[in-house]
């Protein structure tokens, strides 16, 4: 029969199954197909902390959401248009995000009594009828995906278990047909991935094609969809996750500075990918050291910095807690050091695989004494690349540890990334000290040439970086207070006061090197500003578009630099009648902005381990606009879980 092709401008698909069902791989392949097709896209993998949670249970559900469109999009989407559920638990765990009328494709194979009970179902929801049933409320397709997969691959003589494992590829094939995805990338991928096990390779490819063919021939689906390529800025693109972009940014930092990269780290979710990635790139002179603990990781990195490398440590919030004392030492010794915090849900072990932005104040203040550390934050997965280079620029130029705050959403999420031209990347000059810098005259009037490790550059207040092996510049540094200039131990009260202020002033001076903020206010008439940082860029941008589409005016500013703040921030804040700060914490940037600028900002705070939802945020922004402009058509306030603090 002839099938209809329907045009759509965007679709959100969520693949959900058991941890062992290969949903991350399925989502990733669908993403690559969509990227190759030229859609704009954003992804959101969501998986349990347990490596193999009990099979068939709600905690064991793993999902991957991909949002793809024929236009520029900013988030992985609030609620899926299509849910692919591979078992009862996956259906139950994700159903609450599905709006009535959306499509649900279910693999009925695992809907046994035992599995239904494990998932907490009393009866089989697929068999219910009438009001409130799945069949009534949703566009439900019940298919025996596993059975069809096993049938399709029987020629390879695999065990039933191995044959059934290809069901994710059958599902991928079906969805690929439904949305007109190109198949070559997936077939190439499977060929390479299973090159050493031809049976498995062929079974997966066959299952994938069988899924496609099933879509094309069955009467179960009469419509397929077309989502045209997005109009994007000219350039060469690839799909990239935040952790990969961050790792590449660190490689680039080494190349652009000419410094050997030394990563000292300890595995921790969700930062570990960066260690894995950098370990592959020794060709760039990169050394990766998997230390005995978080403290040794940063200790070795700081040692390497002292010795003239670009010292880097990667971790998440709990690791930062352990590294705090060494960060303080780096502040005191004024050595370049990158500290990458891929934030996750806290406190304590918290939610290792979920996202949060609640380490901002830890980054800012989590050390003893007056211990200022510059902070930069990427705003999207691809932006992690540029953020890493910017963090390096600050660390090397100002001889300081720098905190880079990524998060779980950026780390694992992905988007098309316009690959920069390497020629356009900034050069970073380590400017090692090579000669004495101070003429000292003794009481007899005789002069000697000395090296003073704390004699500062007048413009940046950075101290010189003399590395071991440089003759005549031998010196000792450490955690005890330094005398101004000569750097010897000093307990002098006035000197300590001076040095504390100088270290702060050095960090403050970084603001001199920052470009003006970009204010997005298309109408120029906005009275309300939404200020954000980090991974909330996408949801805030998407929410702002919704608000503008509804005819209201709103301005958006997103901060790359959290410490110091850009110089024009205070003036920008004062231009607006109201400022909202959406954050995945209880108001940490709000606290800093209120303290620094005495602006009575409105917080929009969510701490549920998930990215902000654009629709809900748009509602809150609309409320603030109506309240601010005195419009009587104020809609209801945000939902109970999203606290709006005034």
């Amino acid at each position, binding site marked *: 029969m002839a099938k209809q092709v329907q045009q759509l401008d965007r679709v959100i698909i969520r693949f959900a199954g058991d941890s062992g069902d290969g949903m991350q791989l399925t989502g990733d392949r669908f993403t*690559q197909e969509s990227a*190759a097709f*030229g859609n704009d896209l954003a992804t959101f993998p969501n998986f349990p902390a347990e490596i193999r949670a009990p099979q068939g249970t709600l905690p064991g559900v793993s999902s991957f959401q991909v949002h793809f469109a024929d236009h520029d999009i900013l988030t992985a989407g609030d609620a899926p248009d299509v849910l692919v559920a591979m078992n009862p638990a996956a259906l139950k765990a994700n159903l609450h995000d599905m709006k009535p009328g959306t499509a649900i494709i279910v693999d009925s194979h695992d809907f046994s009594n035992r599995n239904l009970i494990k998932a907490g179902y009393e009866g089989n929801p697929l068999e219910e009828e009438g009001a409130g049933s799945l069949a009534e409320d949703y566009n439900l397709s019940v298919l025996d995906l596993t059975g069809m997969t096993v049938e399709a691959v029987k020629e390879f003589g695999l065990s039933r278990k191995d044959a059934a494992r290809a069901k994710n590829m059958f599902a991928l094939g079906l969805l690929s047909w439904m949305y007109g995805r190109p198949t070559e*990338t997936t077939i190439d991928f499977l060929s390479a991935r299973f090159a050493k096990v031809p049976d498995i390779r062929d079974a997966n490819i066959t299952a994938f094609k069988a899924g496609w063919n099933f879509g094309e021939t069955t009467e179960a689906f009469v419509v397929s969809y077309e989502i045209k390529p997005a109009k*994007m800025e000219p350039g*060469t*693109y*690839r*799909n990239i996750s935040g952790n990969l972009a961050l790792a*590449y940014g660190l*490689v*680039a930092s080494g*190349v652009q500075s000419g410094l*050997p990269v*030394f990563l*000292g780290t300890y595995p921790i979710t969700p930062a570990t990918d960066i260690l894995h990635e950098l370990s592959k*790139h*020794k*060709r*760039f*002179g990169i*050394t990766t*050291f998997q*230390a*005995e603990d978080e*403290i*040794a990781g940063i*200790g*070795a990195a*700081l*040692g*390497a*910095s*002292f*010795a*003239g*490398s670009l*010292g880097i440590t990667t971790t998440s919030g709990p690791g930062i807690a352990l590294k705090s*004392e060494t960060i*303080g*030492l780096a502040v005191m010794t004024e050595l370049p050091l990158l500290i990458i915090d891929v934030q996750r849900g806290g406190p304590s072990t918290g939610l290792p695989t979920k996202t949060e932005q609640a380490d901002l104040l830890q980054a800012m203040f989590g050390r003893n004494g007056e211990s200022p550390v510059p902070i930069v934050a990427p705003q999207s997965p691809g932006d992690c*690349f540029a953020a890493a280079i910017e963090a390096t620029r600050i660390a090397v130029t100002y001889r300081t540890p720098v905190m880079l705050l990524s998060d779980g959403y950026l780390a694992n999420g992905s988007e098309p990334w316009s*690959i920069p*031209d*390497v*020629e356009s990347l900034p050069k970073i000059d380590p400017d090692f000290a090579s000669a004495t810098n101070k003429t000292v005259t003794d009481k007899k009037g005789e002069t000697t040439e000395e090296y003073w490790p704390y004699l500062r550059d007048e413009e940046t207040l950075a101290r010189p970086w003399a590395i*071991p*092996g*440089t003759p*005549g*510049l*031998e*010196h*000792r*540094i*450490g*955690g*005890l207070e330094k005398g101004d200039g000569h750097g*010897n*131990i000093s307990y002098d009260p006035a000197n300590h006061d001076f040095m504390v202020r100088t270290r702060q002033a050095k960090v403050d001076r970084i603001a001199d090197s920052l470009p003006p903020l970009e204010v997005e206010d298309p109408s120029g008439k906005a009275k309300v500003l939404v200020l954000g940082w980090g991974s909330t860029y996408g949801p805030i941008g998407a929410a702002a578009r919704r608000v503008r589409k509804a005819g209201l005016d709103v301005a958006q500013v997103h901060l790359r630099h959290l410490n110091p703040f850009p110089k024009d921030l205070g003036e920008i804040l004062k231009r607006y009648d109201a400022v909202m700060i959406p954050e995945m914490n209880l108001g940490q940037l709000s606290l800093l902005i209120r303290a620094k600028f005495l602006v009575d900002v409105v917080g929009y705070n969510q701490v549920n381990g998930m990215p902000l939802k654009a629709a809900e945020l748009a509602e809150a922004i609309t409320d603030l606009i109506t309240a601010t402009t005195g419009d009587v058509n104020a809609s209801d306030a945000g939902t109970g879980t999203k606290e709006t603090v005034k």
Partner: protein
Amino acid sequence: MTTQELPFPGLAGVPTKDEPQNRKEYTADQEVRWCPGCGDYAILAAVQGFLPDLGLRRENIVFISGIGCSSRFPYYLDTYGMHSIHGRAPAIATGIATAREDLSVWVVTGDGDALSIGGNHLIHAMRRNVNMTILLFNNRIYGLTKGQYSPTSEPGKITKSTPVGSVDHPFNPVSLALGAEASFVARTIDSDRKHLTAVLSAAAAHRGTSLVEIYQNCPIFNDGAFDAVKENDTKADAIIPLEHGEPIRFGVLGEDGLGTKGIARSASGGVEVVAGDDPNVLVHDAHNPDPTIAFALSRLTDAGVLHQAPIGIFRSVVRPTYDDGARQQVATATAGQEDQAAALAGLINGKDTWTVL
């Protein structure tokens, strides 16, 4: 004592200086601020005395310390140095030693710094066999915090924090190092300049982590802790000297000019004190790949008040070092790779790209 010719394997990558150097060049301009009579002075003098003889370029020597009285050490040497934070010196030194083959890396630490707060880093540095020399000043007390018991203090120790006696069991640093599979483990005494210098030279010569426990007297909070191995009337019976290739004999000298006591394997599998002329007296083999006997020898050290301790090099064996291995991997990967910018472009472009015109 083992003597080795320059260049020592442990310092093979470190540039040398042809002109003779002297103590003054190695002495920093900072006033030394330890308590009068502190054993640290003797160790500093010995180090300042023998470093010039190593013939290394002074700018290629790095001393890293943690926190504690002994950790002020780097300030008094005119080399590169870092007085870091409590317990972390081996971690910081690991980064330095791995990043730079051309540096001679030294760690100065104490019994609290190395064995309490920094125990984890110490054992892992020794396990990895990172090329560094660790000077563990053991005074069996916390000095800088004014006299609490340490992880090497004897049980029952009366201190400010244990007014009715410590109930903690102490570490034996040599046993710990051997258990962590250190490739070079030695013990020496602050007041024996000659022995100290010889042991430190051998430690520097060794490629890999060298752990040297130095018995160091704290005259303020634990005076006399090591008198047994220092006093003329007791030291013959207290010191069990370990010399590679020599029978392990101690005690007052017998007719053969060697000690009247000796060390032999015991029926239980350890070692025991026997008569000096016993035919089973062990000949010390520091290069024995099996650490069993070295460990058994370390157990001859009193855990309580010190009356007896082996002194010398317990173990000195060759095994691959972490830093050499890590550098080798990088060197192999970077060999012949020149155009970094082109390689970076290749990396970030990856395989799956599309172009929008």
